[in-house]
């Protein structure tokens, strides 16, 4: 029986040194006109053994952050500012060989629609072998045995090692991908919308499995999704992204109980409840901004229900100054002029 979805805060805080950290990370896409900043000055820290959720809608930059952290950005995208630190060491500027070894062994990734990333003409076991032999010197039999073990660990019959990807269902293929991501015992697994394409029941099964594995093997998870409700249940801490910036960051229970940023509040109110009274809800009017020409000042202000010209000095700040992440309570940071001014 799973007690609560949340790990007690104390255990996580005892290990303050972050595993993977991004400081002022900025990613630009070169276009014919001005370069577009998909990620603008993001600070992120993932501690060992914790599940950090990164939530946001399309265009907010969350997938770009993941790709940047893994150093797998492809032109025309590139890291144009900031640094990425793994256990305190700067990753930017490392040689390709060093990065190759770092990837998968220390940090691995489960991409969006990864279940379609399996080679359709190779058996599942062989793909494991391929992957493992790229990183370690192992014999084929040893690798196959390990593959079977890993499949068992994620809840797939060991005999499926000999199956082709098309013989497995979507949910099983996703589990195979997760198994591959865990093959080298990484300390951090980045998951980018790993269950979005799957049924709600399969999603819950897989996440339960990941949770168990996480407890047993002790790896950290960066879980990227648009489903904030899922994160409240699954993550320890949640960071909310909007238009390339982090606007709020807090322990999962607190995001649910006391969201402070108007965008977070709007987002939480975009999920109709399964229990309780049915009231008319509105979501958030408008659409995310075009990152080629983001709004001046606070990027959310055109859609913010609390941004009006009534309060002139505050309005001036909201439209000219970018808000900075500030701690409003232990472990809870918000980037909002209203919150700073004590209006919320």
């Amino acid at each position, binding site marked *: 029986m799973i007690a609560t979805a949340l790990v007690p805060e104390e255990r996580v805080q005892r290990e303050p040194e972050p595993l993977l950290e991004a400081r002022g990370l900025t990613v630009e896409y070169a276009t014919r006109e001005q370069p577009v900043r998909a990620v603008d000055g993001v600070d992120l820290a993932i501690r060992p053994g914790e599940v950090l959720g990164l939530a946001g809608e399309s265009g907010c930059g969350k997938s770009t952050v993941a790709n940047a952290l893994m150093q797998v950005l492809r032109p025309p995208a*590139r890291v144009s500012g900031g640094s990425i630190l793994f256990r305190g060491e700067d990753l930017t500027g490392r040689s390709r060989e060093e990065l190759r070894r770092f990837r998968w062994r220390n940090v691995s990734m489960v991409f969006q629609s990864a279940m379609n990333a399996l080679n359709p003409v190779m058996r599942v076991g062989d793909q494991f072998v391929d992957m493992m032999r790229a990183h370690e010197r192992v014999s084929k039999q040893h690798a196959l045995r390990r593959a079977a073990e890993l499949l068992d660990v994620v809840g797939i019959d060991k005999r499926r090692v000999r199956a082709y990807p098309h013989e497995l269902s979507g949910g099983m293929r996703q589990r195979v991908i997760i198994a591959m991501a865990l093959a080298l015992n990484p300390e951090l697994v980045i998951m980018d919308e790993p269950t979005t394409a799957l049924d709600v029941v399969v999603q819950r099964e897989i996440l339960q499995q990941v949770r168990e594995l996480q407890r047993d093997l002790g790896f950290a998870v960066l879980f990227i999704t648009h489903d904030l409700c899922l994160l409240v249940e699954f993550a320890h801490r949640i960071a909310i992204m909007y238009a390339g910036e982090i606007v709020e960051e807090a322990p999962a229970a607190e995001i649910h109980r006391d969201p402070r940023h108007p965008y977070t509040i709007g987002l939480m109110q975009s999920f109709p409840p399964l229990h309780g009274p049915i009231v008319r809800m509105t979501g958030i009017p408008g*659409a995310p901004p075009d990152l080629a020409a983001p709004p001046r000042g606070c990027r959310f202000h055109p859609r913010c229900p609390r941004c009006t010209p009534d309060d002139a000095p505050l309005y001036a700040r909201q439209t000219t100054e970018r808000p900075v992440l500030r701690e409003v309570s232990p472990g809870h940071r918000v980037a909002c002029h209203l919150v700073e001014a004590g209006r919320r």
Partner: protein
Amino acid sequence: MAQVDPTGAVSLGLPKPRTRGRFAIPGWLRLVLGNAKSRFGLALVLFMVVIAVIAPWISVAHPNDFDLLAARQGPSWHHLFGTSDQGSDIFSQVVLGARRSLLLGAAAAALATVLAAVLGITAAYAGGLVDEVVNFLTSVFLVIPVIPLLVVVSGYLKTRGMTTMILVLGLTLWAFEARILRGQALALRNRDFVQAAKVAGESTWRIVFGELMPNMVSRIAAAFVFVFYVALLVDAGLEFLGLGDTSHTSWGQTLYWAQTNSAVLQGEWWPFLFPGLALVITVVGLVFLLAGIDEVSNPRLRTQRVRTRWLVPRREAR
């Protein structure tokens, strides 16, 4: 502002109209001008077209005029491209021949493309018996080797006039593109907007012409360009073999005469080089145009050249 299309689906229609400054650049113009390759190719082709158009004014003599005194002369100021064994001016032959060669190639390409598009797309959408019949026809025409067939047909034809050649080429070259266009249409027909048109009550032919074709313009344009240069080469080949119309002049004909009069054996390179060069320029132009169109319509083929700044200032941590 528009969200990024998550499906990454390739649009085979025209590129979207874009506004630069005060002018809205229409889709078709972007298609042919949007890319360095297509611009280069288009320039070459337009060059030949212009030559063909002004040919009557720049040719110095009737191509079939012969002047035995001036026979077999190399290029000179008087005869820019030299003369043939009969004393005909090669320059005139090439520029006037351009008219026939280009016209024939374009017309054959147009016929083949229309056939390929109508048959291929209708077969894809209608399915069933129509699809079976068209597939069968396509297979038959694909299996038959084109040039030997053309040799045999030309051998039997009484008249080898332009219309006949256009028909013959058009009817043999449609099958290849028909299959390709059918494939693309098959992929498109299961897209929701086609289904939505059906649910709205659109008739089959309106869907084929109104929904499917406009989304395949790039591919159809590419088909046209492809068949154009194939037709050019095949036609030149047929004429070179002596199966063309000897009463008119064209590039292939000039090559034919040069061959039958053993020009090379006499060390005369000019009756070969110049018509051959004209052919090569046109075909190369079309090939580049085709490559450019393909790149513009399929973004995945594009290689992005990103101007990287070598010195990137490091940002301070916030």
